[in-house]
């Protein structure tokens, strides 16, 4: 079964080509640009800054807010601009996925804003968004326990495969996006959409974690490349 070739010519455990660049925006405190397959995502991080929303601030730690937004031209049929149910959900799960890695005890009553803009979408934007957002957070100089990385696995034509493309996501039977901290192996996001048996689910998670580790290497490279001495 490991010899199957997918529609786009990938093996079952092969990621789409991925490119990450750190520190692309001049005026943001931290930023990152990510391309994976047909996805193009730009993330800006502002903060820690004074919280201007009083009800949000915490007296003993900093808080993060996240906004995931898809550009109207990011998908084939024009997307109605503005927040909708899907983007509110992804905003929330992204913030939740990143929060365990942040060490904000030294910045009480402050706020960090993360803006994820999807310029082009082709399946797996939530994982790509998390991956890019954590690079941007590191770029902003925010203390973190580990770099969070997201990756999905799923079931397509009765096979468990890594990193679903848009087509595979639509035609496939299941999609399991996860986010994890690679050093400790802690999973910070786990969603599952579709039907999977117990074994298939375990297999999908193992595969996705493997994918996360590969993507993590690229994240590290991007940061090293941006800031290492020539």
């Amino acid at each position, binding site marked *: 079964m490991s010899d199957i070739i997918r529609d786009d010519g990938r093996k079952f455990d092969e990621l789409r080509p991925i490119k990450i660049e750190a520190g692309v925006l001049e005026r943001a*405190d*931290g930023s990152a640009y990510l391309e994976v397959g047909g996805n193009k995502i730009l993330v800006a991080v502002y*903060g*820690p*800054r*004074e919280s201007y929303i009083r009800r949000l601030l915490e*007296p003993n730690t*900093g808080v993060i807010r996240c906004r995931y937004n898809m550009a109207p031209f990011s998908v084939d049929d024009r997307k109605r601009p503005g927040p909708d149910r899907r983007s509110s959900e992804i905003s929330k799960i992204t913030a939740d996925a990143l929060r365990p*890695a942040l*060490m904000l005890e*030294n*910045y*009480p*009553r*402050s*706020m960090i804003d993360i803006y994820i803009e999807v310029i082009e979408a082709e399946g797996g934007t939530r994982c790509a968004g998390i991956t890019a957002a954590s690079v941007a957070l*590191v*770029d*902003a*100089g925010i*203390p*973190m*326990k*580990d*770099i969070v990385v997201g990756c999905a696995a799923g079931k397509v034509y009765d096979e468990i495969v890594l990193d679903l493309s848009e087509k595979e996501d639509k035609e496939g039977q299941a999609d399991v996006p996860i986010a994890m*901290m*690679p*050093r*400790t192996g802690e999973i910070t996001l786990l969603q599952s959409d579709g039907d999977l048996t117990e074994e298939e689910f375990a297999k999908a998670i193992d595969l996705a974690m493997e994918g996360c580790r590969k993507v993590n290497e690229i994240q*590290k490279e991007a*940061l*090293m490349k941006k*800031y*290492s*001495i020539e």
Partner: protein
Amino acid sequence: MIHVENKDLVIPGQILADDEYYSGRGTFKENGKVCSSLLGRVSLRNKKIRVIPLKSKYVPKKGDVVIGKIKDVRFSMWDLDINSPYSGILPAFEVFGREKKELNKVYDVGDVLFLRVVDVDEIKKAKLGLKGRGMGKFKGGIIVDIAPTKVPRLIGKKGSMINMIKDKTNCKIVVGQNGLVWVKGNEDMEQLTREIIHLIEAEAHTSGLTNKIKNKLYMAIDGELPPEEVEETEEEFVLEKPKLQNFKEELEQEELEQEEKEAEEESAEETNEKKEKPDISEVIEEFKRKNKSKDGSLSYSDNSNNSFILNNK
């Protein structure tokens, strides 16, 4: 065992060393391993590992000197932006003492001041003061902002870097520990200084930077390299608290100019004080009476407190 070398670039979550090393700033210990929590460079000193961040936000610390911009004038204090997640306040009594004046006639919104952090409270709000040489409002000049972690590098060992720039460009430069730098001089020189400061920020981690900057300055101003080779000063990656003595020397000139005016004012004040001194107890009593009549709200009022009370109602 240690996995990194001094000055290595590290990223959050990277394992730096095993248990026998101490975890310093920018690192944390987990499962017997010392890990980095920041994007920065390793600083190793006797088994103590620290990570010096490449970028960071300024967190106010008592005793620091900072540059702040007034963003609001309130009843008895100014609100200042000190390039930090936490705002600063300058209470009116730090400026006037007991005297009463209209606040916005002294410093208004948009004014840039050189201040000292007098105190930081538990919610990290910085209380600022103007006690110290050269503290007060800046007139003219430009503000350059750099990462607060690069401030020691800009100043150099005993002010070597900053003094060199000052001498060569004839600019007045004041560095705040919150990463704001005030530069005043000839317009072209201001721009050159801004470029030089940004260059220092970008190359803060390289060694022999002072000489490099020196050559650059001479090339830009004289069009030739400096005449004699200065002895090789081994530039260390020092990040101790910068010595700020250089400001004083720098500001002495300005002070001399102001001294005449001040002397006049002071003498005037002194005479006032002499008049006041004998009946100071009366003044205090009067003050107390006033306080009682106004329910103690005279001394200090905080907008946040007011809003809280309103909410309760």
